[in-house]
């Protein structure tokens, strides 16, 4: 574990947020297995310390872009269960009014610019958000989350080049969970991932993505520096997804061994290990942590029940939101 900070509240919030992600995913999986959720979903379980360690270093004014595996980023950036479950089930009260679903879930009011179903699809968006901050003299920072598999997209290299040339306040956060779909990372990535950023003169770091304090420490430093115009930065976070690529990917022996999964789950779990550290440091007892988890599970259950009986959007919403309205007054010459 990274060395001590004394802010008990911060520690407890990080723990809470990680548990909130895990519990959200347990419920999402259950909804899928009981055929109550339309479509598929990609679970974030196992990677909680990445989203939480980073997002806890951000304010509501800072932006993130998320991925197809986006529930964790969404929770970590401050979203509520109720609207998230409503979105997952395609209900009107969902964050995207049911139009986005799991792969586009985002609480926009906390600076989440959206989950993206196109691998690498948000790299331009994140970099553009950082350009806007610079042009408008704003000191917010944008974090671009993407997976190891997404480093194969050429777009990343185009935008990193520009971000470096223009010193943009963007942090590229590569969640390296060892796999892209059914393929091991070493089979799809030549050379070193961080070296690619370094080739553009971007400072790059590798961090243990299972250690929330290590992730948070590094993030605090980089966010502070990015605010001062010292960006961009690149971080590779070594992590692991517990479930299959998506909830339907159950028989996965052909690409990933059960023993490997067991090692990560039993020895490297970010929540269990951080919980142990909290107890050892005398910050919270095992009972405190259990009580917190129970409370979160109860909140999740209530939110799921609510979402299950919530109403679907009215059919009239189908062609709403294709175009944003423009105030005709702004179109008058001289306006």
């Amino acid at each position: 574990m990274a060395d001590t900070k004394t802010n008990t509240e911060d520690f407890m919030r990080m723990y809470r947020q990680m548990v909130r992600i895990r519990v959200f995913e347990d419920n999402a999986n259950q909804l899928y297995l009981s055929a109550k959720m339309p479509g598929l979903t990609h679970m974030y379980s196992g990677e909680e310390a990445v989203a939480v360690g980073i997002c806890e270093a951000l304010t509501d004014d800072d932006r993130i872009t998320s991925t197809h595996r986006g529930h964790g980023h969404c929770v970590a950036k401050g979203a509520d269960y109720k609207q998230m479950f409503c979105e997952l089930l395609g209900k009107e009260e969902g964050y995207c009014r049911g139009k986005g679903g799991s792969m586009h879930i985002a609480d926009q009011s906390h600076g989440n610019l959206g989950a993206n179903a196109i691998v690498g699809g948000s790299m331009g968006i994140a970099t553009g958000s950082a350009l806007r901050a610079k042009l408008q003299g704003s000191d917010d920072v944008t974090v671009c989350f993407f997976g190891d598999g997404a480093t194969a997209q050429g777009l990343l290299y185009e935008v990193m080049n520009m971000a470096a040339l223009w010193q943009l306040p963007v942090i590229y956060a590569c969640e390296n969970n060892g796999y892209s779909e059914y393929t091991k990372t070493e089979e799809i990535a030549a050379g070193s991932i961080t070296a690619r950023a370094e080739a553009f003169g971007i400072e790059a770091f590798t961090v243990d993505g299972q250690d929330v304090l290590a992730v948070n420490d590094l993030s605090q430093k980089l966010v502070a520096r990015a605010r001062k115009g010292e960006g961009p930065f690149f971080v590779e976070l070594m992590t692991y997804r517990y479930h299959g690529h998506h909830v339907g990917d159950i028989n996965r022996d052909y690409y990933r061994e059960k023993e490997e999964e067991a090692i990560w789950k039993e020895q490297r779990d970010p929540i269990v290990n951080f919980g142990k550290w909290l107890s050892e440091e005398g910050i919270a007892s095992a009972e405190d942590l259990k009580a917190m988890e129970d409370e979160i599970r109860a909140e999740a259950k209530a939110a799921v029940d609510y979402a299950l009986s919530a109403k679907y959007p009215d059919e009239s919403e189908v062609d709403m939101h294709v175009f944003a309205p423009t105030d005709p007054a702004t179109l008058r010459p001289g306006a």
Partner: protein
Amino acid sequence: MRHITLSQAVNEAIAEEMRRDLTTFLIGEDVAEAGTPFKVLAGLVEEFGPERVIDTPIAEPGFMGIAVGAALTGSRPIVDLMFGDFLYLIMDQLCNQAAKAYYMSGGKLNVPLVLRTNLGATRRSAAQHSQSLHALVAHIPGLKVAMPSSAYEAKGLMKTAIRDNNPVVILEDKLMYNDKAPVPEEEYLIPFGEAHVKRAGTDITLIATSSMVQVCEAAAETLAAEGISAEVIDPRTLVPLDEATLIESAKKTSRVIVVDEGHQSYGITGEIAGRINEKAFYHLDAPVLRMGAMDVPVPFSPALEDITVPTPEGVTENARKLMSGEMIHAA
């Protein structure tokens, strides 16, 4: 005759052609051990090895460009694009490079390449995994476009596509992979540019692509019970298009609905309707009707998604209106 799934039909077609022609190879994401997320290509890497069934990183423009280069220089690549929605990523390689090489080189360089991908909504996959984008590629001179409506077509069209000396885009409906149809054991190919009259009729023509053929067959069944005889025609390839068969049917029935899952505006339905208006004008008793998907990004919520695509009920309803003269908007 044996019945096999559309997925098996595609797999068989590719396997047969890969045995027949050693210059063919498959390339795409998770095509080898995983056999694609839809398992369509399962078993091919075992037979042909990783040299001819090539897993790529998630780099669509890159592997598409590589396939174009290989095709220009003597290979016959079959490119697997996991979702039709990713067409946007490869448009330059497909439309600026592959589609134009033969023309720009004055006939000296050609690109014998198959791009197989998919289309189709109602899988609850939201706006970036549900699009039917065949109109985009059908718009580009130099690309051939095929859309199988069953396992039978999927096999016959794929074999023709692989032997064609041009870039061919084949779009399969991802909801039909498990649908079974009779498919002969013996080898057959389906020539491009030959529409198939799925059901003969005399009162109204329903022209339908891909899974919309099933939709129109169901509608035709309902209409038959009401005494309306509908002819259902599947063009099978959009480029080349068997205009003659479509026009002939329009002249015979005098009423036509064109049904397609792409967005209705600026799409396939308008193109086919336009050709019929030009060439069968005096034979028509009603305007040719277009039924495409709604002009909205595909919504996730089942409550919204299902109303964006043509249904048998919708086709039936419109057919009744055309028959009763309700759709004739006299000025």
